[in-house]
């Protein structure tokens, strides 16, 4: 690999900061940045500029999210009465006695108000196998886990013939296996329910090459994430195998078949809905990205 001059690197720095360099350029820029404080400063300026663009273009959506959070703070949830209205006054008296008794015997902390923070979810993409479950929290563990993933390219002509001859989507060849896992982490102090599959859920896999054949089916033979709810305990992580190179939006699945050997970067974008189970009003749509993980695509056998 030929070393870049500052002039050559300068043409790539903004795309590098935006994560849009192809792998070869990215490697060359990283090498150059290791020895060039001026270009490192430029990358930092570019990241600030990109952050301001995100703020500017996303401010409407962010203010809508804030508005929702403000409303949930000003309108307490009205829950249906647990007991017959006639008995409610008795219940209130009982509650008062319970509070008074609780204070006396030291149970007062039980009545502290819950944190009103929105659900927060963190995401990492790691290779499958021996990666430690806390890879999402630990820099070294994540670096160790983010090793290269290998898979085999499809012969384009053969694949297109197979796809054309398959009568229904369940006869399509399955996309290649990938030993990857999503690590979802709940950094909060209360349990978090996360929706997998179904409406409102999407997992998009983006491989840094255009030489990928994509096929989408609403009724695929392989569904990465069947519809269910995952509960993550406070401070805990859940590991979800990806298994095959396939994106999913709701119940629609897109198979990805790389056709050209090479080394690529794989990123994922997860959209889901998270809720604190004890506070339905905390329900919130969350979009997270993770990666890149290096993917080596070998020639077809």
């Amino acid at each position, binding site marked *: 690999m030929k070393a870049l001059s500052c002039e050559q*690197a300068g043409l790539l720095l903004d795309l590098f900061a935006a994560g*849009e360099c192809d792998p070869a350029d990215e490697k060359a820029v990283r090498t150059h940045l290791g020895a060039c404080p001026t270009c490192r400063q430029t990358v930092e300026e570019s990241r600030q500029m990109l952050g301001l663009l995100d703020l500017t273009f996303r401010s409407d959506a962010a203010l809508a999210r*804030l508005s929702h*959070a403000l409303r949930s703070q000003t309108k307490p949830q009205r829950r249906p009465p647990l007991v017959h209205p006639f008995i409610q006054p008795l219940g209130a008296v009982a509650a008062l006695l319970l509070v008074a008794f609780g204070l006396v015997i030291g149970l007062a902390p039980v009545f502290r108000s819950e944190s009103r923070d929105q659900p927060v979810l963190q995401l990492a993409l790691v290779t499958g196998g021996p990666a430690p479950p806390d890879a999402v929290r630990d820099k070294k563990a994540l670096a160790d886990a983010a090793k290269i993933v290998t898979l085999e390219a499809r012969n384009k002509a053969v694949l297109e013939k197979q796809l054309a001859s398959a009568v229904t989507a369940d006869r399509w060849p399955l996309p290649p296996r990938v030993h990857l896992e999503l690590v979802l982490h709940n950094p909060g102090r209360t349990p978090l329910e996360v929706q997998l599959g179904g409406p409102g859920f999407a997992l998009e896999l983006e491989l840094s090459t255009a030489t990928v054949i994509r096929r989408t089916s609403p009724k695929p033979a392989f569904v990465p994430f069947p519809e269910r709810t995952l509960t993550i305990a406070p401070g805990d992580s859940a590991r979800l195998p990806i298994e095959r190179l396939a994106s999913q939006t709701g119940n629609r699945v897109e198979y990805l078949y790389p056709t050209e050997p090479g080394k690529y970067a794989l990123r994922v974008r997860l959209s889901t809905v998270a809720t604190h189970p004890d506070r339905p009003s905390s329900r919130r749509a969350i979009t997270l990205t993770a990666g890149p993980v290096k993917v080596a695509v070998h020639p077809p056998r």
Partner: protein
Amino acid sequence: MDTLQGETDLIERTLRGDAEAFQLLAGRYYRPVGAFLLKRVGRADLVEDLVQETFLEAFRALREGRRPEHFSSWLFGIAHNRAGRWLRKRRLVLFDPADPPVTPAVPPELTARAELEEQQHRLAALDESLASLPDELRQLLEMKHRRGLTCEQIARELGRPVGTVKSLLSRTYRLLRERLTPHGSEAT
């Protein structure tokens, strides 16, 4: 003066529990506070959550009867504390293992008014630059930063080569960065 008077009215309404009034205040300060936090934590992916936390904390304080003397200074103070708390706690975050983020130190003291002016100046420069861009480039930025599409997805949607999309974006980013950077730093 009208702006200040309007702000005072909005604060008074918020003190009485009017969330819509506070929403108007948030609309005024959302981007400056976000830009301030971006400068502090250096992580665009965290800024939105920190801004939300800042405004929710401010709203709670106002509803509890806190009456700030200077709203903007007080708000930036909350944002400053949020950023400081995050930086001190080394909150659990995600990162590219090959490119760990630089964690800037918490500044020793906050000069909120100067910060507000600086961020407003940066954002005005950005708005001015965006307004002067041709529609085609602005559309690319919308697709990239509002919708979060990658260059490949943009290229597919527009039916253009991905190399062209990257080249256009790269030139646009460079132009914007140079206009936003006071000393106009260049790779040499």
